[in-house]
Every structure is written in C-alpha cells, then in structure tokens.
C-alpha cells in the first residue's frame, strides 16, 4: 500500500504551478488569471472569498461532451448571496438531445440564443479570479474547464479548488464503521450532493440547474466547515 501524499506537498505543488503559469502563460485572459496571486494557504477560512461553481454538461467525458450551462454563487463563511451569483447557458457545438434538454431544464430557444463557450469563458475566469472555487465532484468542473481552455487557447487552466464531495468522502468513508461495511461488502454511504446535504439537515432542491447546484454546494460547504472544521482552519488544508 502506498501512503497518501501529505497536504503540505499538495500546497507546495499548487504554489509552484501557479508561479510557473504566471510566467509561462501567453493568452491574456489566462495571464491575468494566473498573475492574480494564489490565496495564502495559511489564510483562515473565515477570511477567504469563495465561489461555488457548477457545470451542467452533456456527459461525463470532457473529450466527447460539452458544457451546457454554468452557475456560480460567491460566498464567505458569513453567508451566501444567491442573487449576486451568475448563470449562463452555453450553446454547444453539437445538437442537444431532447433528453438532455429536458434533464437540464433548458429550452431550445435558450440554447439557440446562447453564446458559444469561447464567448463567455473570459467572463467566467474573471468571476473565479481571486476566489477559492468550491465544487461538488471536481472530476467534472476541473477537466471540462481545462480542456475548454486548451482547445481554445492551447493552454492549461488548473488551480486549487475545494471539492465538497472529497470532504464528504474523507469524513464518511474513513474510520472503523466504513472499514466494517467494506469488509461486510455493504454499500458505502452515498456522497452525492443531495445525499450529503441531507446528513447536515439541508433541504433538498430541484437539482440539475447549475446555479441551484452551485448554491447547494455552497450551503453544503458551510455545513461541512461548521461540523468538521473551524473558521480558523487554514484554507490550504482543504485544497485539492
């Protein structure tokens, strides 16, 4: 068995990557993004400006699927302001299936009049800049955003973020109870957004809307901090 790498090495890697990108980046948008100094990893959570981000996509694989919409909601530990958030429908290159239209609760006319991703990527990065991004399940937002930037500008777009699903896994899928369940071959606790929220007494929303999910993710993060961490916890400890 290999030992899980330490959080300090995660922090070190991200700081190193940021410095490197700030120098190497050519595209003006990404340049601006990387020249904004990375949040001090020792900064207490109570002082960090966060932004919850959610992508709705046509599927799980960024190579074959596309972003349909994104929603983001800025917040701090003191509170979430949903009306300060942002929501954008994006026109994909492929034709959207009826199922996917229905699933995302987006209408055809919304899609038809929506701008393509390249038109709004700039704005999206502007809104993320200077904030710590919070997502639920980073395997969507991170690779989709990265690939979009590579396709468009030929450069990577990666940054430290907080994954509420990873936090949930850390607390729900460790310890003797989890090991016992595993030994017995039982289903592990679900760490999907809605199931996770229920454990913190959070209400269920009609999901599959990027901004509702962003708001739901922000709430879940507040609940996780209230239960497992403290306002003085250093932000770097939660980076993924």
């Amino acid at each position, binding site marked *: 068995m290999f030992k899980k790498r330490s959080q300090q090495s995660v922090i070190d890697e991200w700081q190193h990557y940021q410095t490197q990108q700030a120098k190497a980046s050519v595209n003006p948008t990404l340049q601006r993004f990387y020249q904004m100094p990375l949040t001090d990893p020792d900064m207490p959570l109570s002082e960090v400006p966060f932004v919850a981000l959610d992508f709705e996509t046509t599927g799980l694989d960024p190579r074959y699927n596309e972003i349909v919409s994104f*929603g983001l*909601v800025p*917040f701090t530990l*003191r*509170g*979430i*302001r*949903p*009306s300060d*958030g942002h*929501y954008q429908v994006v026109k994909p290159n492929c034709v959207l299936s009826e199922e996917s239209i229905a699933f995302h*609760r987006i209408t055809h006319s919304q899609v038809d009049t929506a701008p393509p991703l390249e038109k709004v990527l700039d704005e999206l990065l502007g809104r993320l800049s200077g904030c710590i991004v919070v997502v639920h399940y980073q395997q969507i937002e991170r690779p989709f955003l990265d690939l979009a930037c590579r396709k468009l500008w030929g450069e990577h777009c990666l940054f430290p973020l907080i994954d509420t699903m990873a936090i949930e896994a850390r607390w729900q899928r460790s310890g003797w109870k989890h090991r016992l369940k595993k030994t017995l071959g039982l289903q592990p606790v679900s760490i999907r957004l809605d199931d996770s929220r229920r454990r*913190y*007494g*959070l*209400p269920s*929303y*009609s999901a599959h*809307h990027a*901004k*509702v999910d*962003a*708001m739901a993710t*922000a*709430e879940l993060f*507040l*609940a996780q901090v*209230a*239960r497992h961490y403290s306002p003085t916890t250093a932000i770097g400890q939660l980076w993924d």
Partner: protein
Amino acid sequence: MEAELREIRDHLSQHPPFDTLLDELLDDVVGNVEITYFKADSMILEQGQTIHALSYIRSGAVEIYHYNGELYNRLEEGDIFGQFGLLRQRKIRFPVKAIEDTLLYQIPDTIFDRLCDDDSFADFVELSGSRLKSTVDGSLRENDLMTTRVRKLISRLPLMVETTVSIQETARLMTENAVSSVLLIEPADDQDSDEVFSGDEGGLWRLKGMVTDEDLRSQVIAAGVTTDRPIGQLSDGRLITLQSDESVNEAMLTMLRNHIQRLPVLHRRRPVGVIHLSDIVRYETNSSLYLASNIFSRSTVRDLSRLVPEIRAAFIRLVEAGSTAKMVGDAMSSIGRSLMRRLIELAEDELGPAPIPYCFMVHGSLARHEQSVITDQDNALVLHDSFDPQQHDEYFKMLAQKVSDGLDACGYEYCKGGIMATNDDWRQPLSQWRRYFDEWIADPDPQRLLHSCIFFDLDAVYGEEYLVENLQDMIASKARHNPRFLGAMARNTLNRRPPLGFFRTFVMETDGRQHKVINIKGRGLAPITDVIRVHALAVGSQAQNSLDRLRDIEKANILPAGQVDKLQYALEFIALVRMRHQALELQNDQAIDNAIEPENIDATERHNLKEAFQVVNNAQNFLRYRYPY
C-alpha cells in the same frame, strides 16, 4: 427570476408573513437573502449583540431564551426571529440557539424596514402592538352582522304619542300609520337627563315606553279597560332601547336576552325607529334567534330534544359566518337558557305551581353567557326562606329531577361534579345559600374552594330573580374585603397554567417537554376566566360575563395600563379557537371535545395562540403577587 431564487421564493411564499406580501416586495426580499448555516447546539444570536437582519428558518429548528435562560420559544422551518431586536435599536434581547442543524435566510434590515410599511407584515411583527389584537379586530371587521349597523334595518320613523292621549286615539293613529307599535313620550323640562331629547318642533321630550298591538289586546280588550283612558297607563316605564350605530348582531342578542320582539332604536337620545324581530330574521334568515322562539313552541321534552340538531347547525353557522366568540357565546347561552326555561315551564305544567317562590340558578359558562355548543349542566335551586323541607322539598326535588333529565335529553349532560339542583345540598333556601357563600368567603380553604369556585359564576334563569340577585349582592360586597379569600382564589387559579406554545406537531411546555394535544378549555379558557373572576371579585363587580367583568375591572383601575385589552383579546381568541375546533368536529360527526392537536392549527393561529397563552401566563403571575395567600 432564476431557478435558485425561485427555490427561495417558493419557500418564503408559503409562510406568514411572506405569504401575503405583494409580489414586488417578495421579489425584493428574495433578491436580498443571504444564506447562513448553524450546526446543532451552536449559538446563533447572543444577548446584547447588534443585528442587521431578520432570520427566516429554511430548515432546522432554534430555541429562544429569556434573560434568565428560561425557554421562551422553539421555532421551526418557516418561522422568523430577530424582529424584536430589529425593532428595538437593533439589539438582541433574547439569545437564540440552533437545536438542530439550521439553514437560515437572512433578510437585511434595510429590506425589513421597507417590509414594515406593509400593514400585514407590520401586524405580524407586532410593529403596532399586539398581533393578536389585530387578528381579533380583523375578524370583527370581516363580520357582516357585526359591521352592519342596526340603523340599516330601519325603514320608517317611529310613531310617537304623548302619554296623555287616549287609548282609542292611539289605536286610531296606529291604524292610520299602519304600524304595530307606538312610542310613548311626555314633555320634559330637564335637558340634562339621560332620557330627554328635543323634538322636531323644538320641545323637550322624554321617552316613556312602548305600546304594541299585543298590549292593546292583552291589557285593554282582554282586561276590559275603557279606551278613553290615557295610553300612558299601559306602559310599565321599563324600556329596552338600542343605539342606531350598534350592530345588527347586538340588536339580535338584545332581543334574545330580553325575550322581546321589538326594539326602539335611538340616535343619541332621539328615537329614530323601531325594529322588529322579523326585520332581523329577514336579514339573517338562519339566525339562532328563530331557534330561541322555536324552543317556546315545543310542548314536550321529546320535542325539545329534537331541536338539538338544529341548535348544533346554528352553532356551526354562527362560527362559519365569522362571528366573534362573544356573539356565539351569547347566542348559545340564550338558546341554553331558553331551553332550560321551557323545561321548567313544562315541569311546572306537570307538577302544578310551586308551593313557595324559588329561583332556578345556573353556574359556569351559562351563567357567564359564554356557553359553547356543549357543556354539562351546572344548576341549583334557591328557595324562599319560608321553605319547609317536610312540606315543600318533594315538589322541588321532582322539579329538579325533571329539569335535569330534560337537559340531559337535550344534550346537556349531567354534571359529573354533582352541581345540580337534584343534589340535596344545592336545593336550599336563600339563608342556607348565604351561609354557604359566607363560609367560602370568610373561611377560605384553597382545597375546598376548588370545588365551590364554580358557584361564583351565578345567574338566575327562571323564577324569582331577586333570590339570586341577593346572593350576587352579597358576594360582591363581601369578597372584596376579604384578602384571604381573594388569595385563595388566586392560588387556585395557578393550578392550571397555559403551555408555552407549539412546536411542529407538539404542544410545548415551559420546561421544554412536548405533548400531542392540548386541552384548550383546561389550559387556556378556564385559566383566563379564572383570572378575570378573581379581579372581578376584588373590585366588587356584579357582572358574570367575562367581558362585562373586564369592563368593571377597567373602571376600578387596578391593572397596569393595556392589561384589560390584552386579556380581552386573549379571551376572545382562545374561545374562538375552541369554538372553531368544536364546529369542525360537529361537521365531521366526531365527538365534541376540547382536545386540539397542534397539527390542525395553522401558522398564524399558532402565533396568536402563543401570544394569548403568554397573556394568560403573565396575568397569572400578576395575580400571585397582587393577591398573596
């Protein structure tokens, strides 16, 4: 509006006070919501802290505490808190703690201030005083019979003749004017008197009485009186009148109470018309008044008992029509008394006239004119002091038995505590009754008073009323001068305390425990009635009705400012909740009881009830300090 804001809006719009907000205002609220989260057992607001937002519970539950750490309230999803702090220099007076993981929507004070311009919102957060008060006032406004002034029913000016006019001339004028009643007046010289008014030609007149078609038949023709005598001799000088701005409802109740069919209506002191029972019946066809008159046309107990469904239907109609508890209580009591009178009349028909004067007396809610749809019978007999048990008791025992059985047949169950005239102890001459009350008052033992407390609401229903009035006088004059008696009564009042309020589907007690149901009579209505009775006894009030007692208490000026109003609103609201509950049970063919399940109480009603309970609780605390035992 975007999806996530719609989520917020949908939730807010289902809960008061946001459910009645204008759309625009609600959108403003939603657009400014900030979401916060508190885990279970964490403090949300500390005492003395400054706040800048109203909190709305989106999920979870919180507890609010008094300064001394005592539980003040427990709130759940859809409730708000912080409004009192916002209204009082933005300072938190009562600390708040999350008792479950809690998600809050915070509404900034700038928006809160704007919301306070909205009347219903302001009422809800009690900007302009009590929310309970505005609810009770609101229901008064909504009530048709209550708002309709009696002057609306007047179609013509009254015919008025001087008392010196002959009977024949009066009858001729009545025929000429096609009226069935005439008002009698005589010249007056003293303008300051309450009864004097100025006529059209400037003269001063005094209203002396009223003569009707029936009077002419019974007092003139049947009595063989010659028609050249002055009409004035037909009037006994007693006249019940009503002010023109009183409600139709009040007119109806006045007629019911006094067993009259015509009522002169005055504007200040000047007669402006006479309304007849049928005017009101036309106005309110399904009135309980019709029922009362129906009662007197029944000639057997069986016939009377067949009226029970109609009585219950009338009760439901009254409650559904949005009547106040006072209106329903008055109407049901009038029906109850009419029923009892008729039963006594029927018993007398059977047994023959009573050997000595007597008075049938009632206790409890019927004596207070506050009866709901069902009650058990609480009655007693006060006999003339010439009572000789050997000679007379057999008659009264049978009378009591017949009345009691009749009441039971009509839905008034036998009193479990034995407070009935069939009980030898409660079928006694006046002197014995005076001794009873004298002992209760002079030698008050809380334990014994517990059982006799019910006798301190007493009223005559049939017979020689002076017998009961004698007792009422005696109580009023003696009780007030006996602090130990008042102290004992006050102490008994504290045996039944209201709960703190409601939480989800539970009744919440002051110590935080929770119950499934609340007995609204035992925990609400009885305690407040008890409190009012003690004060009434202390000020020597002769009134039996709680609202009348409150008026006497107010005149005596013994309570802190505003307290009488609060008691009145609390009484009205608690009584109404009980009546609504019972009306619903009747409609669903369920047994009628006083057990209310919190899940059947809507959010606004909960808030009002909680406030009412608070009023009762404070009033009880005040009583303890005011009349120490």
